[in-house]
């Protein structure tokens, strides 16, 4: 196991995985709080058209991921000042954006011949071949995301829970809405490079879902969520290193198993309490 870490590619994978787990665990906590899981999922699928577009245009894949996710975040988050994001048509709009993203991705796939072999990687992820540049970008990004969340955390919790009152006390709720989605888009794009477009959710939803069951304190919830994400990615890396199955398989299965265990333990605990009372 120690030997596993002597390979540079595994060192890179562990560092990158840790950073990504911290970012997606934190932002995922807000995403679950804000009930924007469908929006998050749509953002995660945007890395597919983003990557194919990047190949066709001839820019780095990662750039395609980021541009596509940020554009989609703006498209989802844009709203009239008087409307709230949770209006009846908002999920229909998000769904439409998702479909357009998929269609664009597949259409562009036709123009590009050399991506076909990599489609698996694009969808299900790879932890091999993370280079130094990617790593430096990830380190910088994690620092930026953590500082931003630390600075806007309180107002963002307020605006997420209670947009009416937050607006009444003068918080820029609209800017927070769209700013959060852009931040989420950036993190999703980064995460998708490792977990693949389809399995971003393993790190974005499962850790916060578990954390919200474990604690009702906001700051603690974010930290627990990030911690679970980190543990999850480390375990998955170990499993993936010693087996032939892809990383995403382990991340999703282990995450799901932990979630089920927490639910079952909590159910039986509250069941016991009910019997005693």
């Amino acid at each position, binding site marked *: 196991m120690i030997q596993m870490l002597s390979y540079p590619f595994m060192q890179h994978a562990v560092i990158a995985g840790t950073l990504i787990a911290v970012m997606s665990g934190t932002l995922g906590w807000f995403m679950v*709080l804000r009930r924007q899981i469908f929006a998050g999922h749509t953002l995660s699928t945007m890395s597919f058209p983003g990557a194919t577009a990047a190949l066709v245009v001839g820019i780095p894949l990662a750039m395609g991921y980021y541009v596509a996710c940020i554009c989609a975040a703006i498209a989802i988050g844009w709203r009239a000042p008087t409307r*709230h994001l*949770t209006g009846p048509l908002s999920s229909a709009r998000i769904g439409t954006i998702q479909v357009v993203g998929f269609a664009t991705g597949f259409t562009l796939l036709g123009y590009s011949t050399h991506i076909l072999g990599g489609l698996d990687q694009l969808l299900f992820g790879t932890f091999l071949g993370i280079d130094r540049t990617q790593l430096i970008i990830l380190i910088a990004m994690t620092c930026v995301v953590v500082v931003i969340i*630390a*600075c*806007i*955390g*309180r*107002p963002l*919790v*307020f605006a997420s*829970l*209670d*947009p*009416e*009152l*937050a607006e*009444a*006390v*003068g*918080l820029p709720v609209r800017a927070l809405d769209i700013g959060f989605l852009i931040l989420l888009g950036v993190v999703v794009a980064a995460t998708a490079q490792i977990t693949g477009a389809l399995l971003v959710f393993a790190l974005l939803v499962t850790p916060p879902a578990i954390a*919200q*069951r474990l604690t*009702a*304190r*906001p700051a603690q*919830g974010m930290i627990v969520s990030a911690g679970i994400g980190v543990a999850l990615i480390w375990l998955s890396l170990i499993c993936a290193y010693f087996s032939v199955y892809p990383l995403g398989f382990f991340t999703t299965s282990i995450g799901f198993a932990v979630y089920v265990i927490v639910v079952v333990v909590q159910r039986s605990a509250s069941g016991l*309490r*009910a019997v005693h*009372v």
Partner: protein
Amino acid sequence: MAGESHHTGSPSALVRVSHGTVVRGTSTIWSDLNLEVFPGEFTAILGPNGSGKSTLLQVLLGRMPLAGGSAEVIGAAPGARRADIGYLPQHRAITAAERIRAIDIVGLGLTGARWGFRIPGTGTAEARRERAQIHEALDLVGASHYAQRAFGELSGGEQQRILIAQAIVRKPAFLLLDEPLDSLDLPTQASVVALIREVCTHQQIGVLLVAHDVNPLLTALDQVLYIANGHALQGAVDQVITSSQLSALFGMPIEVLTAADGRRVVIGTPDAPHHHGHRHSDGHGHG
């Protein structure tokens, strides 16, 4: 008498609206509205649906301009002293906040709008003061024993108490409550009204409460502002909610029946009867 007091009102009124007119698009919501609220005074804003009750709150919060007349809130233009106003909006997404502790919801009322973060180990005196303020608000509404529980697990009445604690945690001079009794059952309504009355008297906070039914409030109110048909009437309940006053206000025959216990039934208003959606009772049966 109270209806005339805007001419000579003492300068310490928390809210003073004189001949206020609000126009939305081409239609006038109401005009020539006069209102005065003093510290420790509990005023209900009544009237049929769509008469512009919530609009008045928006004016006082500085979120909607007057087309005519003048308004002053805590001695300044509406919106200028926003930090000194506790506000409880009507329909809020927050009741769905399942997994946040009640005490954190109250905390948002104090520090929710603060940007940045406190470096661990610094500002502990301030943090302690804030914590004390939050606990004081929780004590005041009698919610301390469930403050550590998740907000979404609380009953409708308990949630309303937490939200009132959130609105008063900054020790505001003035409290605006938009339909706080909506979707609560009758015993819970009575206990929330008693709480608001207590806060109003003991903290010397001026309270403006929007309601569609005066009866749960009767024993607690100092005065009402009845808005209907684009006009408004301010005064004590037994001065304003009478057959002759309301008939004049609506411009059609209205009958007010008074029951033996003082409850009033207004008959003949053009408003459709309002059906309550019941949430939970203010039950103490939680284990």
